[in-house]
């Protein structure tokens, strides 16, 4: 296991897209000290801002210290395990393709943006545009799984094409905006106007959204057996989804009852927003 302990007190943010376990496998500690980290309009070697020790060949990397002002951690990683013991900055795990990125604290905006595979676990709160898309892109998240232990900001899963986002707490406004497919779940409910412009996909919320767009259909009762499969998938990844069982009559029980609204009827109209019947 490799440990990188950040010793950086400056207020200028860093961009550390080079910190990803799959790129460390064949490198020595001396090589890692020289990895360029962007600071403003120039780079500095990693060794100048962090202590690096351990074995890089294991594919397991632990980041210690305050990484909240360091952007793009694990960006594009394809394999291995990267754990941030504390908060992480913007764009963490963006465009991930595989492996696992675990953030013990909070994550900044755009975490997991446009990721195509792997697992991103955020123990604390997640910022805006979680699993979202960058300006100009035709799709956001295209695969993989994002698990959030607390709350998430606005525009979770915007233009999401495939994959799973599960938030144990609350989600912000405009969740799943323009969603193409995939599954987003908010155990604690979400903000206003979820699913605006969604074509397909599913948004699960712990309670009826405060403001459901008028372009969504009248709610109908349903017993979605697939939610049990969904909950099992999350449990297999280690997420405590007992919160679902507290919802409604059994939550994720195969016979649990939910209400469903379909939309967005301004678009394809094959998306769905579901919440437990109480």
């Amino acid at each position, binding site marked *: 296991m490799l440990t990188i302990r950040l010793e950086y007190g400056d207020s200028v943010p860093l961009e550390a897209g080079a910190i990803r376990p799959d790129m460390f496998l064949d490198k020595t500690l001396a090589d890692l000290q020289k990895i360029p980290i962007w600071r403003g309009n120039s780079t500095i070697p990693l060794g100048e801002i962090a202590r690096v020790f351990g074995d890089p060949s294991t594919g397991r990397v632990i980041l210690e210290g305050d990484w909240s002002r360091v952007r793009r951690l694990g960006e594009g990683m394809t394999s291995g395990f990267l754990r941030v013991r504390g908060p992480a900055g913007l764009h963490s795990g963006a465009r991930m393709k595989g492996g696992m990125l675990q953030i013990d604290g909070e994550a900044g905006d755009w975490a997991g943006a446009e990721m195509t595979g792997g697992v991103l676990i955020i123990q604390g709160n997640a910022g805006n545009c979680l699993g979202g898309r960058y300006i100009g892109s035709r799709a956001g998240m295209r695969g993989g*799984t994002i698990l959030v232990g607390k709350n998430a900001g606005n525009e979770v899963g915007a233009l999401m094409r495939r994959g799973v986002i599960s938030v144990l707490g609350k989600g912000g406004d405009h969740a799943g905006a323009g969603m193409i497919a995939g599954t987003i779940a908010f155990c604690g409910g979400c903000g206003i106007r979820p699913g605006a412009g969604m074509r397909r996909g599913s948004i699960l919320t712990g309670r009826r959204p405060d403001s459901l767009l008028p372009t969504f259909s009248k709610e109908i009762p349903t017993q979605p057996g697939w939610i049990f*499969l*969904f909950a099992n998938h999350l449990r297999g990844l280690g997420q405590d989804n007992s919160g679902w069982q507290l919802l409604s009559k059994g939550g994720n029980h*195969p016979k649990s009852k939910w209400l469903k609204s379909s939309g967005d009827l301004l678009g394809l109209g094959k998306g769905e927003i579901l919440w437990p019947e109480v």
Partner: protein
Amino acid sequence: MKLNGIEVEDTFAEAFAMRATRLIITASRPVLVDAAVSAMTGYGTSVIGCDAEASRESTLDQSSTPDGRPGASILLFSFDKKSLEKAAINRVGQTVLTCATTACFNGLNASDNAQIRVGGNLRYFGDGHQISKKFGEKRFWRIPVMDGEFICEDHFGMVSGVAGGNLILVGGDPDMVLDAALSAASAAASVENLILPFPGGVVRSGSRVGSTYQKLRASTNSSWCPTLSNLPGTAMKPGENCVYELVMDGLSRGPVEEGMRRALHTASHFPLTRITAGNYGGKLGAHHIHLKTLLDIA
């Protein structure tokens, strides 16, 4: 050779390599699981005349099914990948999809190139209203039906199985031979990864390759028919009036051997005149399971 005083002929069962898959069928009530399994495995005894050989492997409680409901696992065997896929699609589409509250899941892990696509083909029944859900590496299809949604996994794993393991039980009293056959079938059925595709696990119409009628691929095994035992070519000995065969299909050779072993030892406690096995001279099947290797208790 003797086992518990019963003669066991020094011969072998000739079994064949076939493609196999496992399906997990669930429903809201056990009675519906049974109904779906019964329909799904019907007309699935021998690939001589059916599209696949199929039978219930085991009954599953709700803690061991993917969707937390009562269920059962089914093994399905056919000649090759293409025919197995076609049989699975047709059978699931006609017998599971149509049964109230059911769902159908893959029960085998296999590499990408050893998979058949079932849900991915049945989804078109949804007429555009079907919904895909991909959790991890598994994709499920939700097809709207009149009681909600039929959930079916996209791909099912496929392995190279072994089909046609067999035992032939011969005796004087037909009731006793039947008792022996049913008990032996029950013992074999307790082996995991194994099915006995014939009704009750017992075959009364053992067949041979070819026929005097050109259009038939197989015909009755006349040498084992007691009503023809007075004719030349009979395999029956004096005092032998009834023959039953057990046929077993397994996901690999091991379960077939174990099923045959259990069946052999169970049958040997009945006053049969002899126990033997069927083969084609060793020229057709890749797997030769010799009875002498099954005499010891594993």
